[in-house]
């Protein structure tokens, strides 16, 4: 009986582990992009005065962030925020939001 039980548990787990890995989705891009949600809304879908950024092209987002950071694009707060991220991080974030529909 006990052996039967263990066997059941193991075979069950091996199936679940595969979907676990797929479902996890906790990537560096996600950790970074979640930081924008308190201002731009969950997944970038802003409900208010701050512009929505979901579904905008990766090119637009990454270029905007770099220009904000370098003071080339006028902003109130975005220049200060963009100063906290590297080029590589900006690319990860831009790709993430461009994929949010």
């Amino acid at each position: 009986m006990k052996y039967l039980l263990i066997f059941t548990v193991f075979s069950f787990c091996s199936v679940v582990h595969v979907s676990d890995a797929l479902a996890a989705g906790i990537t560096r891009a996600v950790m970074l992009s979640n930081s924008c949600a308190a201002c731009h809304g969950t997944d970038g879908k802003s409900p208010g005065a701050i512009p929505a950024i979901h579904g905008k092209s990766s090119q637009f987002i990454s270029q905007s962030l770099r220009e904000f950071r370098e003071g080339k694009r006028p902003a109130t707060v975005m220049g200060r925020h963009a100063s906290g991220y590297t080029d590589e991080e900006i690319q990860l974030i831009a790709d993430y939001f461009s994929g949010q529909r």
Partner: protein
Amino acid sequence: MKNYSRRKFVKLLGGTGALLSASSLLTGCGKAASARIVIVGGGFGGSTCAKYLRRFDSSLDITLIEPSSRFITCPFSNMVISGMQTMDSISHDYAAQADRGVNVVHARVQEVDATAKKVTLDNGKALEYDRLVLSPGIDFKWDEVEGMQASDAEIIPHAWQGGSQTILLRKQLMAMSDGGVVIVAPPKNPFRCPPGPYERISLIAHYLKQHKPKSKILVLDAKDKFSKQTLFRQGWEKLYPGMIEWVAGSKGGSIEEIDVATGTLYTEFGDTHKGDVVNFIPPQKAGAIAQHAGLANNDGWCFVDQRTFESKVHKDVYVIGDASIAGAMPKSGFAANSQGKVCAAAIVSSLRGVAMPEPSYVNTCYSLVSPDYGISVAAVYRHSEDKGIYKTGGGVSPIDADATYRSQEARYARGWYDSVTMDTFG
């Protein structure tokens, strides 16, 4: 297998001498025995954590415990106090949490047993957990206040927790006659929302200027400097000239004793000040349940691993939000929201036995100096083993900004409120 309760099941496995620990086996098994996460406190930290746990792993069994059926935010409560907004506009329910399958239990946690891994509620029920998250907010160090106790807040409101205290301070201001003196007494560091008292002073001044222009605000501060000080003082001089007097702690602002019945404050220097409305904001510590669970240090705040927010005292217990010591991050709703997400990722990663990617944290505190005049302080943070959470970017609004910039920031402050409450409670 269905016939076995989780407990019996674990016992059986133990009896076979299986090498794998029962808990890692069970939590690895998705729906068969989904990991039980109990979250204490449905404010900024707790609600965000529940939402993002669910987003990261749809199989988790998540319970959010919060006494109130509606959460009334402190952010934008200064706008209610000054009559710019209604209580309704800062109240949020838990319908969205229930919709995504989070069990919302309206009760108060009374005991945490970190050894047996269970919490006991004030309705007598007990709940077992695999991971526990506490985001209980703040409590007050009444024992450090001479002449005043918790129940006296019904007479001298602090309005530093949302709800009835906010309404009480609003009512007192409305009842005051023109020419009255409002005393605001901000606490020493660290405390919830460093720019909060100064936004409140600004918006009380805005109310007085419109309705009771002969009145004055006296600020008796426990500190010698405060958040966004230059920006606030610039705004006060511009918008409310002569109305606000700020006294630094070392210049006689520090309060020794309070006479509640007469609204009189006695300072360290032996001066007495009487206010027609007194808003004394007491010194603070982590919420009572964190103290009770033994999670707090001598100063009343909780040490955590700043990468995961797991308590330094108890394993599998996490503390986020105001109650935690989070390196360079201030105690704000925005910070609690950011920490809730990092903590959710840490918990899911630990349950799966995988490494969490490098965390990223963020905060911005917007303050309104008037309805059309906003200022902000922003920061992006990361973590290292030796420094904990440290700042990598950000800054404050420029001092030489024009009126258009200030009014844009006021507009974005409202946009922030809409977004952060959607991201937290929606």
